[in-house]
């Protein structure tokens, strides 16, 4: 709970949690990213079918644009991989001994699986494709 500590953003960013703090923060950010994307998607579909309002088209245009799609891909992939790592560590606590190696292995899987499709999407986007 709240302990009345007031830590500035600059000081907070220098917190020595390093890699695992980054993993925690990214898990939180990507989770909220997925929630916003899925929520917007559901609301757009709901208003399109139930009311037929223009707001659906507006929302759809935003989340179907390539930059948002790349961000969503980052969110889903990171959240899934990081969540699987947390499950493995929680269910087999002896593995916590190797938590650093697990995190590096996670990045080793994440970077190519995210990077290649994101690169292709970005190239297609920059060359005027969909």
């Amino acid at each position: 709970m709240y302990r009345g500590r007031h830590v500035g953003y600059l000081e907070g960013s220098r917190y020595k949690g390093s890699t695992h703090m980054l993993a925690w923060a990214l898990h939180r950010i990507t989770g909220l990213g997925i929630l916003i994307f899925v929520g917007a998607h559901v609301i757009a579909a709901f208003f399109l079918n139930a009311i037929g309002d223009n707001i659906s088209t507006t929302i759809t245009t935003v989340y179907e644009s390539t930059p948002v799609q790349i961000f969503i891909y980052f969110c889903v992939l990171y959240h899934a991989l990081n969540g699987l790592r947390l499950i493995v560590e929680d269910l087999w606590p002896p593995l916590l001994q190797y938590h650093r190696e697990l995190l590096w292995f996670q990045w080793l899987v994440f970077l190519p699986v995210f990077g290649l499709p994101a690169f292709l999407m970005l190239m297609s986007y920059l060359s005027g494709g969909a």
Partner: protein
Amino acid sequence: MRSRYPDSGSTLEYTLWIFTRLSGVLMLLLGAFAVVYNNLVGGRTLMDIAAQYRWGFFPTYWHVQNTNVPDVFPNWSNSFWQIYALLLFLVAAIHGFNGLRIVVEDYVHRPYLLLFAKGMVAVLFLFTLFAGAVIIFELFV
């Protein structure tokens, strides 16, 4: 700041903690099964990979309507996929909004503001469930 482990003594918190783990795996399995099914019934030649994944993570027929699928019935639209989509949607909504509640509890400290914020999370959750049920079962007026 909340630790990764649930507060001891609270059965609900513990249940939700377990649920978050199980539902995370379940969502991946449900998505993978739908993608595999999609490919087995012809999705490999009828649609691109984006449409396959749209189907995988929310198997409702309008996710494949704009592809080359000639007829969405019976492979892509029946009660099985409606219940499948509802299960996936329900599990995902609980997982997501429980996560949002935990984030809100981390950053909102004033008791009445916290109560209000959690109330808003509950309202959003219920509205999303309603909207999802309307979309899946086509309960349009």
